[in-house]
């Protein structure tokens, strides 16, 4: 609950005090808190969407008694998320999210400000989606033992959003580092895996783990290979061309990769040509699919050969 309280402390005072009295068992199931200007405050749980009423009750169907988020709530929450220092988060804001203390990710949207072809800023923030990050120690034990039982080999985690890919990666990092005594490097582009704050990882990612916080995956992978001699490199949400090129260079150096990708099933994964090319190149020998609606639960593990059949 401490982590949840830390996450909600970034929301406006009014919203935070409305959430505080809610039942702890319910709050434990909350994956996302969604705030939209002039719309009811909602919680995304493993089961679905729930709304809060003015009287503090929870309901599945929003009506006139719903707790409505005001523009002032959004503005205050935005300022809190930026720690009253918008300039510190300019890059993150232009990418649409800020990772706050504890590794929670606040998705932010409003009116985009373009300079040429790139989004350089955001004005009139109209909505915030606070994704709650959790540590489930041990959730990756079975997967780690299966994937690395014989030797170190590449592992790709596939799953739909909110299936626990990042949580699983974090645990695999910890286990590989502390149980298998491997040198692990995490390329934590969005700061979600280790949740580094002032140089200290807020999440337990293992004693033999180096965290490259804020690095772009491509650059981070190359730097790790060049300077840290890792046995395993871990990165989240691969798919970009630069990421794939860097992974290809990494496998040539004998590093095993553990990465996650958005794909709810084999068919969706097969549509991701850059990832398939990596699998063909031998970057991942094992592919694990996470179950939707049941976080951090592996539904199936297949080999690269089986996938490419």
């Amino acid at each position, binding site marked *: 609950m401490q982590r949840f309280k830390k996450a909600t402390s970034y929301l406006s005072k009014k919203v935070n005090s409305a959430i505080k009295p809610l039942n702890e068992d319910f709050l434990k199931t909350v994956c996302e808190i969604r705030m939209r200007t002039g719309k009811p405050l909602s919680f995304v749980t493993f089961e679905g969407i729930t709304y809060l009423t003015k009287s503090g009750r929870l309901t599945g169907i929003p009506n006139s008694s719903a707790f409505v988020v005001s523009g002032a709530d959004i503005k205050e929450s935005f300022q*809190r998320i930026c720690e*009253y*220092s918008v*300039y510190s988060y300019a890059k993150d804001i232009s990418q649409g999210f800020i990772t706050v203390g504890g590794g929670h990710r606040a998705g932010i949207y409003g009116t985009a400000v373009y300079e040429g072809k790139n989004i350089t800023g955001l004005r009139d923030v109209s909505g915030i989606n606070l994704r709650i990050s959790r540590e489930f120690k041990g959730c990756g034990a079975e997967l780690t033992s299966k994937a690395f039982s014989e030797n170190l080999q590449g592992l790709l985690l596939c799953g739909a959003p909110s299936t626990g890919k990042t949580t699983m990666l974090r645990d695999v990092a910890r286990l590989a580092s502390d149980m298998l005594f491997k040198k692990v490097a995490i390329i934590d582009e969005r700061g979600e895996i280790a949740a580094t704050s002032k140089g200290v990882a807020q999440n337990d990612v293992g004693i033999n783990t180096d965290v490259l916080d804020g690095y772009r995956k491509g650059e981070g992978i190359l730097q790790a290979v060049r300077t840290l001699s890792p046995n395993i490199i871990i990165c989240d949400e691969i798919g970009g061309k630069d990421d794939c090129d860097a992974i290809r260079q990494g496998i040539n150096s004998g590093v095993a990769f553990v990465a996650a990708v958005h794909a709810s099933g084999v068919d969706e994964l097969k549509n991701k040509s850059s990832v398939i090319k990596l699998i063909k190149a031998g970057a991942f020998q094992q592919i694990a699919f996470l179950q939707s609606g049941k976080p951090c639960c592996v539904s199936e593990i297949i080999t690269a050969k089986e996938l490419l059949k």
Partner: protein
Amino acid sequence: MKTVAVMALSFAVACGGCLYSKHLEMRVQKIEKILIFLSQIKTAIEFTADNVEGIFSWLTTSCDFSSLPFVAICTAKMGDGVSFFASWSESLSKRENVVPLKKEDVALLLSFGSALGATDSAGQIQNCEMHEKLFKERLSAAVSEKNTLSKPARVVGILTGAIVLILFL
């Protein structure tokens, strides 16, 4: 008894003049310190992009701003979880934290704080530079006020004290 009272009165009048003179000198020193403070914040934003709380905490621990007590008070309040602008306003609201600054100086500090952290780096640097410029203007006014009034205030105070002493004794 009368002699003691007259002596005390003349001493008080003389001290009043000297204190006013000191007050003018201290205001100049404080504004000079504020200019250093603004320049430090600008540098920190430009080169470290640390957040406001981090910058204030660094300024409080690593730089000597003991003559600007509102900086340390604001840092402590932020450490207690109060938002930056609320901490800044509260620390400037108490007279003892800002003496001998004038109301206009305090208003300028409040205006600086209201924009601090609210925009991107370019906006922040402009905010610092604009307030540096405004404080430089206030500094030159304070210096000329000190040059014009400091010495005469001290002399007038001492003379008036002496006259009181002569007249009543």
